[in-house]
């Protein structure tokens, strides 16, 4: 089911949580709403679910398959919602929790007892918790509770699945396992899913498309590759991973940052101040000047405990620079703390006031 939100605004008191948000969610896709706290992503999700209403002025709308559901009660929208703290019914067993959505249907639409039982069993098998059917939520671990919450949401055969930081309260290892499990589940079930998260690794790993939000606005919508490698704004680039930042200027078709120069012939922003964002793995370290433009720097620290080697340097311009390289590369480079080296650039993103180039 395709979902669309148009011109959604939401203020709480004097705080503007959402400002003129427009978004189209394709049917069957897994979309991630990514951003720091306060970016409005949870508010947007709750508005889609019907747990909040958008401001009436200026009028915004929520559409399911083109139908306006803005004023429809949340219970009538047939969406599944998974809360960050599970919100399982503590006085009901796992079975009763999952069965709840089916049991509260009005007489006419309620399935028969044995049908409900069958469906719940199926779902419990799907989440590998049939043995826990008679347990209470307090007797389960966090990861188990979240799986029950998911099963509960899926029981009503929702037209969309909305997840609010579902793995936020869990340990790192459990989180990773559940993340992958969610992706596999989505591949099987194909329900339109929207996942709110502040963890960009999670968004990049799991989602078909990522929506990056900041201070109530959408910064960029795109596939994980697009958002990571072609960030539309400084915020997106900075948020999606570590960056090195250099200050400089545009000068007749070139972006100049000290000794580092990039060709940017198509830019019209001549003479303007510019900022260069470079990923740590797009920088190289050389002991000797090899003809390419390089920034002189001194190695401060080498961190080799981890999947990559992290080299922290202090440039002669006074800026702190971080370079990442593979362990193999590091062994070949023989870089040590205290060495004077040159840092060269493979690629970077240049941003001026209004343009991203």
């Amino acid at each position, binding site marked *: 089911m395709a979902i669309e939100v148009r011109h959604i605004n939401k203020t709480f008191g004097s705080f503007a949580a959402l400002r003129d948000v427009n978004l189209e969610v394709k049917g069957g896709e897994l979309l991630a709403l990514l951003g720091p706290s306060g970016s409005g992503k949870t508010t947007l999700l709750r508005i889609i*679910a*019907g*747990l909040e209403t958008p401001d009436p002025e200026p009028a915004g709308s929520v559409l399911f398959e083109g139908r306006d559901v803005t004023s429809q009660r*949340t*219970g*009538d929208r*047939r*969406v*599944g*919602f998974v*809360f960050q*703290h*599970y*919100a*399982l*019914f*503590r*006085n*009901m067993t796992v079975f009763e929790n999952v069965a*709840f*959505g089916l049991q*509260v*249907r009005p007489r006419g639409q309620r399935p028969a007892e044995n049908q409900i039982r069958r469906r719940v069993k199926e779902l419990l098998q799907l989440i590998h918790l049939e043995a826990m059917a008679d347990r209470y*939520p*307090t007797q389960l*671990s*966090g*990861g188990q*509770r979240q799986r029950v919450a998911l099963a*509960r*949401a899926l029981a*009503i055969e929702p037209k969309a699945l909305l997840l609010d930081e579902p793995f936020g*309260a*869990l*340990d790192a*290892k*459990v989180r990773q396992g559940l993340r992958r499990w969610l992706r596999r589940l989505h591949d099987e079930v194909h329900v339109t899913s929207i996942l709110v998260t502040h963890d960009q690794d999670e968004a990049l790993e799991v989602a078909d498309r990522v929506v990056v939000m900041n201070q109530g606005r959408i910064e960029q919508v795109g596939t994980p590759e697009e958002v990571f490698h072609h960030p539309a704004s400084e915020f997106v680039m900075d948020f999606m991973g570590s960056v090195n930042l250099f200050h400089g200027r545009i000068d007749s078709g070139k972006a100049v940052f000290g000794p580092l120069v990039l060709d940017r012939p198509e830019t019209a922003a001549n003479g303007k101040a510019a900022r260069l964002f470079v990923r740590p793995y797009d920088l190289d370290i050389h002991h000797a000047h090899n003809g390419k433009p390089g920034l002189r720097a001194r190695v401060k620290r080498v961190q080799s405990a981890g999947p990559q080697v992290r080299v922290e340097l202090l440039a002669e311009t006074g800026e702190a620079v971080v370079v990442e390289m593979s362990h193999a590369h590091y062994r070949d480079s023989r870089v040590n703390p205290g060495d004077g080296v040159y840092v060269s650039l493979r690629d970077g993103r240049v941003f001026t006031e209004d343009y991203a180039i």
Partner: protein
Amino acid sequence: MKRQDPLLLRCGLTAAALLFLAVFVALPLFAVFAQALEKGLAAYWTAIADPDALASIRLTLLAAGIAVPMNLVFGLAAAWAIAKFQFPGKNLLITLIDLPFAVSPVISGLIYVLMFGAQGWLGPWLSDRGIKIIFAVPGIVLATIFVTFPFVARELIPLMQAQGTEEEEAALVLGASGRQLFWRVTLPNIKWSLLYGVILCSARAMGEFGAVSVVSGHIRGETNTMPLHVEILYNEYNFAGAFAVASLLALLALVTLVAKRLLERKMRQDYADFKAAESAEG
């Protein structure tokens, strides 16, 4: 490793505390039963089976039987509004609900006399229609409602505030109606504190003396509750009788204490479960 106070100190303090409690608390309780049974079991039953005593028991149960359900409904409504919603004046409302606790029992009765008594606001209006509130059963019921007013609400409000609204939201998204929401989600989560509040409310309703004394008129067999009947018997020097009826009330107090003991753990669980859900675990 907690430092232990020296043995002598421990024994001394414990003995002092126990002595204090024995003299000031345990002894009076014991005295009630001892005096009640002083003239033997036969006299005890006679005192309780006395028609006026039975009438007082009936009236006590009636007053409690009306006051408690009404305050129960009020407690639920007030706790629902206060705990699940945000609105200005919430703290004021909570303070106002606690007011009856701060009012002396005699004044609790006085205010109803001022409203419904012969010289009261509505006095003439009522006597024109032949409706008696003061010095009759309705007045007793009203005074009882007043003094037990906050009990259920006070148990429910902090609990429901701690439990938050997430389970209710989850139920609504799943399609539950308002009624289903209340009966299947909210009520089961508060059942132990609700029960305890009702027990406290009932015990106080049956044991109230000062307020009921003011509005009652002390008409034997008609407008005497058990505490008032105790007073009458005592003032007539019928000690065995007075203590016999008093012993029933003392038993009621003991039931309340036992209930508190039994429910305490369950009530604490209602708070604890909620916090446990928030801690990150594997």
